């Protein structure tokens, strides 16, 4: 049976844009055909999860019912009262399916993976857990079953983000952009689509399909000497790291472009990450919708809690603990393997060092000019590349398999 994976080949774009054309024409003339949009989205989601992936389709349906009931119930509860433990419980239940899925491979629970797993579960969990947190804060006051579904199942971003925010999304979806604004969005959409083609179908192809197997092979060949350390490993680092960026950034551009065609301003995921001047700057440019999610829902809340309860005196201690906790959780979220966790720790410690350096720099008036800026960019880039080499698991293959 026909099964089409999002943004995988040119055919998909033709089908997608033809299907979205009536919607776009409507938006151009100031109308949003909500029902049509929902039907098209459902058809595309169905085609993603049918055929050999039917069990993922069932898992998605079960998962959505679970989140729907949970967020609804919590919103009803929050209107009456506001116990912290109920909030923690609801957050835990919201994250539970994802947690199980992440533990399953390490614990060999194959039945859990097949029963609950589907592509995109992480990104749906980020959305619903954020809703629970904002409901607790009183920022979201009502539960709209219909808008909840449209937010969670927003088709362009369902499988891998970018992660939108409920209140921002609703603002877009219940209105129609002015014609001038919509044309500007279409203009951006065209640009993003073509930039995405360049990234994903040309650069990521050259790096990932043509170069990567070659350099990996050479690294493994020379692995017998020096415990796997060889100059080829450096080539693997650059090729694999850049591949990661172009592949994912290309995908994200497609998702954003598609959502623009649908009159929704999905947030961007990347902002020239390799021009970051330090590690903190990097996380404000790399996979932004995820790092901002972690910043707003984990880091800031943890800091808030620790400061309010005065667990530690020094604000430096608080921020260091929060950095490491934040990045470790991100590492664990990627998966329970040593290299993901090490990657999280690497960035946690990296941010702590980065902060210490920034403080030192401010205190001692370290010279700052064009040259030091370029040097900072180069150093940051290489720190990031080393972390990606860890993240991509090639070292695991090299050392332990």
């Amino acid at each position: 049976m026909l099964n089409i994976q999002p943004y995988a080949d040119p055919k998909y774009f033709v089908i997608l844009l033809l299907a979205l054309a009536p919607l776009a024409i409507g938006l151009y003339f100031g109308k949003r055909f909500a029902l049509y949009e929902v039907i098209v989205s459902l058809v595309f989601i169905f085609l993603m999860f049918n055929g050999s992936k039917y069990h993922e389709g069932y898992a998605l349906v079960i998962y959505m019912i679970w989140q729907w009931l949970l967020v609804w119930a919590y919103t009803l509860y929050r209107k009456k009262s506001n116990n912290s433990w109920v909030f923690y419980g609801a957050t835990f239940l919201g994250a539970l399916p994802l947690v199980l899925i992440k533990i399953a491979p390490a614990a060999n629970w194959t039945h859990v993976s097949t029963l609950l797993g589907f592509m995109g579960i992480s990104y749906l969990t980020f959305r619903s857990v954020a809703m629970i947190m904002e409901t607790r804060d009183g920022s979201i006051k009502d539960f709209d079953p219909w808008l909840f579904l449209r937010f969670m199942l927003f088709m362009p971003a369902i499988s891998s983000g970018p992660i939108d925010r409920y209140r921002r999304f609703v603002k877009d979806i219940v209105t129609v952009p002015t014609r001038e604004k919509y044309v500007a969005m279409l203009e951006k959409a065209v640009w993003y689509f073509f930039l995405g083609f360049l990234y994903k179908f040309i650069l990521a192809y050259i790096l990932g399909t043509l170069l990567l197997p070659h350099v990996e092979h050479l690294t493994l060949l020379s692995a017998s000497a020096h415990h796997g350390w060889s100059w080829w490993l450096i080539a693997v680092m650059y090729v694999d790291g850049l591949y990661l960026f172009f592949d994912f950034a290309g995908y994200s551009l497609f998702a954003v472009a598609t959502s623009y065609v649908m009159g929704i301003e999905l947030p961007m995921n990347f902002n020239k990450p390799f021009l970051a001047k330090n590690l903190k700057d990097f996380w404000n440019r790399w996979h932004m919708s995820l790092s901002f999610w972690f910043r707003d829902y984990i880091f800031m809340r943890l800091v808030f809690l620790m400061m309010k309860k005065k667990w530690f005196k020094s604000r430096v201690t608080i921020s260091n603990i929060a950095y490491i906790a934040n990045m470790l959780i991100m590492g664990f979220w990627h998966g329970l393997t040593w290299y993901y966790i090490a990657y999280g720790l690497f960035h946690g410690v990296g941010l702590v060092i980065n902060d210490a350096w920034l403080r030192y720099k401010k205190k001692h008036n370290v010279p700052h000019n064009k040259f030091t800026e370029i040097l900072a960019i180069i150093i940051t880039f290489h720190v990031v590349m080393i972390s990606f080499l860890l993240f991509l698991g090639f070292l695991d293959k090299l050392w332990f398999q």
Partner: protein
Amino acid sequence: MKKRGLWWVFGPVLVAFILIGALFLAPFSLNHTTQKNIQDASVSFSKDVVKGQTIKTAAFSDKQMRYVPFFGSSELLRLDTMHPTMLAEKYDRNYRPFLLGQAGTESLTHYLSMQEMQPALHKKQAVFVVSRQWFTKKQSKLAFSEFYSPLQTLNWLKSIQHITPTDRYIAHELLQEARIKNSPFYANLVTKISGNKLLSNHDKKIIALRYHTLLREDQLFSNVTVSNNWNKKVIPAMKHLPEQDDEDSLLHEATRIGKAQTTNNSFGIKNSFYKYRVKNNVKKLANSQKQFDYRQSEEYADFQAVLSEFAKQHTDVLFVIQPVNQKWANYTGLNKEMYYQSVNKVKQQLTSQGFNNIADFSHEGNKKYFMQDTIHMGWNGWVAADRHIKPFLTDGYQPTNYHINDRYLTREWQNLIPTDDNLSEFK
């Protein structure tokens, strides 16, 4: 912001699509293949050459030089001084080898590749080097997907007038491969052939359109891969070859080079190969080939498909059967009896169908400097091969008399453990 209309946004996209459409559907050819391109491609071993149609068509229809397809696998890569390409070039013979093969190319890949070069095979000559290592029981066709070309599949589908047992066999084999199985377009068409159903006119129209697009893609990108082998390997080798095209002096020179390059081991393996590929694992490799068995394999049927294509095109073919390095085979425990049985099986398949041009070197793996490494012919081996190749190709095409027996496609033949008796009885 300046107010911009829809034309401003979509105009460039529209223009781009029109240009791309024009490029792909234009009825005239766009590429220009030079003599130098062909020469480079003939020794490039590039996957794109195995897969690509344009460069092969250009080579085999070349007016100034007669390129002869050499099918094989990794042995063709050993571009040393006595390699057939060097000899043909040095002595300006009336042919030049066009090497089609790489580590991992086996009969099925060659069969598909032949589909897009039928004019080059029709009543012409070819050389086919057979390696025993193709004929394994398991893990057959590991590299198939690397060499798979949809264009060749379309060529094959296009050429089917009536469905032969070979076509059905090939269809069945292709349907096992992920590249075909997972593509609804190809899976659908190939399933029809495997089910003995001719393609409809509608199918043929779609194939023609897809064919045109893929061919254009092939034309546009086939020259992208550049190979430096000609300048790096062929030209330097010219200097070492004796001035006269004479077997004795060739053998003398080959022995000299072979002797100088096999000093660091007792297997007669080339120094560099031994150093990088063998030395570190030499202990582990002792007796490592004890279980190897080349007698039962699907490859026998794939090979049969190749034979029937040669018969269909009346190609005059010389088959070269490569030996294995005898010292190495002894060290790794390769079963001799099994080895010769499998050689006999292939020879039976050839001779019983009228393929009588066979250069069988299977008994010469113990000769000095015959093998360059463990399984590939080198210095003296190439000189011995030339004793067959040179007269075969310089004399030119001889009419063929092949009679194909489709029973060689069956499981029964694939799984037959050959003995002298059952081979001669198999009909």
